[in-house]
């Protein structure tokens, strides 16, 4: 009988094997349904685990040795279950959406589903195992899956370029994790992070290495630049990468550090800085985008900044805010990507300069998008509001005023670019190239896929207790923090930390009311067209503010921020390596290859010198 803790991973990997074995006989849709069923079964397994971890129990399991001296040890606690749920539930919804989305692909559907299942399975292994070497294996296995998934259309240059960037940045960052794991073993003699020896072995340098790996995976500045390039992939891939699994690996690792060893203030401060810069840079870059998926990609960067900031606060409330934000982000970002995919699937484009006015043609997609967009900007009644409310409360409680200011500014910028995206895509006038007559609502299963996630954004926004008590609270407790958060319906805090954030919220409402009052008092006239002399007859265009205007305006306004793009630095590093290699090649050809006898003579002289002297 297989241990319950192993069930989610086992089910997903078994389904991947089944996909391969039955590939010849299954239709494309059947492959999708098989994958979707496996995710549902895995989610059911996780829910069974949640019943036990909800009471503070830790479910352990051993699945034999993966390698000599490397046991498949599972240690499933509240944190593991929370991330497993995100992976399997959101992953399941994305797979449901994929059934029809991928039905039209002429080839590669088996590859797609095998990779998606392995990806989610790898995620459950990553968050479930207590063996750090297996954590690294899962970490990189997911990296490989994402590499192949981003490069799914391997005949397209943009896809493979994006895939290469994913591979290089995340894998190079992953070496930080490997180095830390190796050094931890050298110092503690174990790969098991639950072993008390691990805590004493965890030094500041090793934490820094782990954070580098987390930054690369969780798109934290300056290791975030792979994510916009990864957009030339099937939308379910983008959804899975951005919402549920991939970018959450680093979040999990950062959170897990709290249960491994002592957390020094200096790391909290450094991570706070990284989180704030990331949320700011992500938002500012998002403003400048005219590609809908790239805008969402940069918004992921920004939102991950929020999540990490919450965790970096290191307080009961901060960690709770970070974890709730992570779950909330999984829901609304998954929804947004699936909506963007539906738009692209139907219109054939994701260029906001071309799109427009499709709300009438795709009312369900529009409604779901609006819910998710409301969540990401933090409208009350959605999960995003609860997450932001918690985060602001935590930052105020910790007296991190700068964090509050940055988070508040970024929230405003987020509203700005989501208004731009919403109006450009769903309202306003479509571009001349867009054939609106052909636009139809997507298939029902795709609507259900995104609808499930969108509904969850609302349900857990109105009644956050449903997510807090059974899922987030055990996760927070499993990290050694206390859970003393009291929430009303809609997520307004009434317990610890409530005073500051309520006062802050009151101030914002008062300011808005004051603004409205002033506006009313001065009797501002309604907006009307202003006659502008254009040198003769009116010019034919330029009467509406569109995505391009926003983008150009943003580029002008935020030019100094765009110089923070680290890609030019990476290019210089690569050129330096390449030039060194070419220079060495020239020297080697002229010496070792063209004059081997002389080279041998010199070598043996140096060797003898070394042997006798050293």
């Amino acid at each position, binding site marked *: 009988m297989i241990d319950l803790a192993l069930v989610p991973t086992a089910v997903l990997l078994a389904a991947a094997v089944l996909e391969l074995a039955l590939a010849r006989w299954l239709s494309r849709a059947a492959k999708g349904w098989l994958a979707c069923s496996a995710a549902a079964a895995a989610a059911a397994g996780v829910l069974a685990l949640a019943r036990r971890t909800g009471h503070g129990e830790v479910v352990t399991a051993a699945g034999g*040795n993966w390698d*000599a001296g490397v046991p498949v040890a599972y240690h499933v606690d509240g944190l593991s279950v929370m991330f497993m749920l995100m992976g399997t539930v959101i992953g399941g919804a994305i797979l449901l959406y994929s059934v029809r989305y991928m039905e039209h692909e002429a080839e590669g559907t088996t590859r797609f589903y095998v990779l998606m299942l392995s990806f989610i399975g790898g995620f459950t292994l990553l968050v479930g195992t207590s063996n750090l070497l297996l954590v690294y*294996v899962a970490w990189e296995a997911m990296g490989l899956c994402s590499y192949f998934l981003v490069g799914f259309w391997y005949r397209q240059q943009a896809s493979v370029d994006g895939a290469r960037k994913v591979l290089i940045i995340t894998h*190079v960052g992953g070496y930080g994790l490997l180095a830390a794991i190796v050094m931890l073993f*050298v110092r503690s003699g174990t790969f098991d992070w639950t072993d008390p020896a691990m805590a004493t072995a965890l030094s500041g340098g090793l934490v820094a290495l782990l954070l580098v790996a987390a930054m690369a995976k969780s798109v934290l500045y300056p290791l975030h630049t792979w994510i916009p390039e990864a957009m030339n992939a099937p939308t379910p891939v983008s959804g899975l990468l951005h919402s549920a699994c991939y970018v959450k690996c680093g979040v999990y690792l950062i959170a897990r550090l709290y249960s491994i060893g002592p957390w020094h203030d200096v790391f909290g401060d450094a991570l706070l800085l990284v989180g704030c810069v990331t949320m700011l840079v992500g938002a500012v870059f998002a403003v400048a985008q005219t590609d809908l998926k790239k805008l969402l990609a940069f918004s992921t960067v920004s939102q991950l900044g929020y999540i990490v900031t919450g965790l970096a606060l290191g307080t009961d409330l901060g960690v709770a805010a970070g974890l709730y934000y992570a779950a909330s982000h999984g829901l609304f970002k998954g929804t947004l990507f699936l909506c963007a995919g539906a738009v692209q699937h139907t219109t054939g484009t994701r260029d906001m300069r071309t799109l427009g006015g499709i709300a009438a043609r795709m009312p369900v997609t529009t409604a779901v998008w609006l819910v998710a967009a409301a969540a990401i900007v933090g409208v009350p009644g959605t999960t995003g509001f609860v997450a932001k409310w918690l985060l602001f409360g935590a930052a105020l409680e910790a007296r991190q005023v700068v964090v509050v200011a940055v988070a508040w500014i970024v929230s405003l910028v987020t509203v700005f670019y989501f208004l731009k995206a919403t109006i450009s895509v769903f309202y306003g006038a479509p571009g001349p190239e867009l054939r609106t007559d052909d636009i139809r609502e997507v298939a029902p299963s795709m609507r259900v896929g995104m609808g499930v996630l969108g509904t969850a954004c609302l349900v857990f926004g109105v009644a956050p207790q449903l997510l807090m008590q059974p899922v987030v609270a055990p996760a927070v407790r499993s990290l050694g923090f206390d859970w003393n958060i009291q929430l009303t319906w809609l997520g307004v805090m009434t317990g610890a930390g409530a005073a500051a954030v309520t006062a802050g919220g009151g101030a914002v409402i008062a300011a808005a009311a004051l603004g409205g009052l002033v506006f009313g008092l001065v009797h501002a006239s309604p907006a009307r067209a202003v006659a502008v002399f254009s040198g003769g007859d009116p010019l034919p265009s330029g009467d509406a503010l569109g995505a391009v205007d926003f983008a150009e305006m943003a580029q002008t306004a935020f030019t100094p921020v765009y110089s923070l793009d680290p890609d030019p630095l990476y290019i210089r590093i690569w050129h330096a390596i390449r030039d060194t290699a070419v220079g060495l090649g020239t020297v*080697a050809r002229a010496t070792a290859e063209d004059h081997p006898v002389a*080279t*041998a003579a010199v070598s043996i002289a140096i*060797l003898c010198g070394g*042997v006798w002297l050293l």
Partner: protein
Amino acid sequence: MTELIVLSCLIAGIGLYAWSVPQGSRSWWLLAGATAGLVLAAIAVSNSVRSTGDSWTAAILLDLAELAAVALVWTRATDESGRAARRYLGAIVPAIACTLIGGGLLQSGAPPAVEKLALCLLVFGFALKLAWIPLYFWLPDVAAHAPVMTTALIVSVVDIGTLTELAGLRARAPQLFDDHAAVWTAIALLSMYGGVLLALAQRELKRMLAFSTIGDVGLLVLGLVAGGATGLSGASIGALNHALSKVLLFGAVGLAERGLGRSVTLDTRGLAARLPVPAAVFVIGALGFIGVPPGFGFGAYWRIYLAAANYGGPALLGALLVVAVLDLFCYARAIHCTWLGPARDAVTGVPATLAPAALVALAVLMIGLGLYPGVLTAVPGPVLAVVTGR
């Protein structure tokens, strides 16, 4: 047992490939069979005489295998391959002489000066055999001008034999390694950095593969030098991974060359669109070779990293990881420049069926070993036994 099966599969894969895509005349088959057979015999002998310490028979068998490999390069009968064979012979003859004399000098109770002389001769000999930097002059020519399976046989099967011989030396005379650890470490690092940087400097894929072989052998040598059960088993598994992945990589490039009718370089584009199976094989081989988990190579890499961290501390571990990053750059560039992306180069050659099938079988074996390395490491086979002394 598993290890023997893997080696047998490897040799069978080379044979099937050569059956499907002719690598030479009848003499090629004879010499290839002799090379593989002599290496297997040498490993078997090394394993059986571990307790007695008699290394001569195995060494002579391996030297004969090296000479057979030289003759194998010569069978192509072109000016370039003739030149490559002469250079190979020019390396192997002094290498054999040095290792035999060095081994002979290495008697118990030999004075320190003699032991140092023996060490110099042995290092020089192995450096020529395994093409360490800067004594690699023969390998790029062999890789560029010999048939791909000839090169694959040399850098996989023959290299495994030579590494086993080196591992045997490690077991018989540990003081040679422990007392001169700095020298060995410097040599290993020089080969690793030199190999990977020179690989990055190449534009022709077979030369790039040859140089990356040099770098990888440097890593395996470091595993042996670092020692301990972890380092030694890492080197042993790494040798198997090296062999498997190099056969896949050279095999895939060989099929691409057959299709294109010319060499594959970094200017070749989008071969995967026309040759999806060789492309997949190359990608699997490359990722396994550089040790991306769950590729087979990772089983070797983490052990060697662990041994290196124990032996040389974080600095040595950092040095190894920098090489790993450079390897990643090297192979990612090869995969993306040559294989993936829009097709540009016409493929006109007659497609082979058995050769891709053989490579796919080896790729599946490699993936399987990567997913579950326990099948190999639970019970040590002859190479692992020679290396680890278990």
